């Protein structure tokens, strides 16, 4: 397969990853702007910043392939019951786990090595997010030996 074609096919996969980053950013912006967060606020702020960096990285890759970067929607669905710090952390764990499982699938279909490695570097950090979020709840931070088995 020619490089340009591979870049184009990878860009389609990475565009979907950008959409997921938009959704994550909307979730974190919403909870950081609300009053439910307590002791986990600093960690959630760090995670939100990490997602901003992931989105910017993915957008650069897509743009470099000559593909238009998808625009964010005005709003995304939010989990229900975000009434206190623990509820937000549980929702964040779910969101991070869903994101990294999708990222793992992306690694299996991306064609160019640098794209696989780039997405794997993001997946690993999302896995770290889950561990630190679980620690705040007194849960085992690494309950499984393989990400593909699920994290929680």
């Amino acid at each position, binding site marked *: 397969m020619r490089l340009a074609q591979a870049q184009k096919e990878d860009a389609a996969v990475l565009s979907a990853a950008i959409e997921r980053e938009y959704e994550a950013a909307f979730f974190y912006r919403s909870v950081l702007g609300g009053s439910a967060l307590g002791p986990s606020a600093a960690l959630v702020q760090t995670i939100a910043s990490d997602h901003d*960096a992931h989105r910017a990285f993915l957008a650069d890759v897509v743009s470099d392939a000559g593909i238009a970067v998808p625009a964010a929607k005005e709003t995304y669905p939010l989990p229900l019951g975000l009434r206190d710090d623990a509820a937000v952390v549980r929702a964040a764990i779910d969101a991070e786990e869903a994101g990294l499982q999708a990222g793992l699938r992306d690694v299996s279909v*991306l064609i160019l090595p640098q794209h696989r*490695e780039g997405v*794997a570097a*993001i997946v*690993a950090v999302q896995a770290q997010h889950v561990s*630190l979020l679980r620690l705040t709840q007194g849960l085992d931070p690494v309950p499984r030996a*393989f*990400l593909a088995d699920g994290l929680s």
Partner: protein
Amino acid sequence: MGVGGVLLAACNKAAAPSATTAEPSSVAPPSADVALLERALASEVSIGLLYEQELMSPTIDPPTRARLESFRAHHRDHADAFRRALVLAGRPAAEVSPSPGPEMSSGHDPLPALSAAEDQLAKAHLVAAGRLSTGELAQAIAGVCGVEARHAAVLRSLAGEAAIPSPFLDRQ
């Protein structure tokens, strides 16, 4: 299918011996994938030995000891998965020897040494994810890489360091 199965299936597809060849490993050079898996296995065995060594430290409190034992068990699982994949590919794991671990002085804090080793291992797996020839293998090793990254973050957190120093693993 777990990661062991994925590794097995993917490696089988990439480097299986022919039906008429009983002992392929003694004649055929390892494929690039097999070489990467051998290196990954050696690294998992090495870090397991480092955990064994560090767990002998008398300064570790019981909760931290339990955590470290759990992480050591994960590395055994990872090594087993790589070993099974290599055996199926006709490369018996007995051929693989772990790289030597660093010399440790008694009474030192084990957490920085272990977090550094986990970080190094996660990054090695990350590079392998980019180099393995099939998407299945890349996905499987990325899943192992993510677990090493989690270990590193938790160990840094226990040591009072910044747990996630960068949004990208390769820049941590």
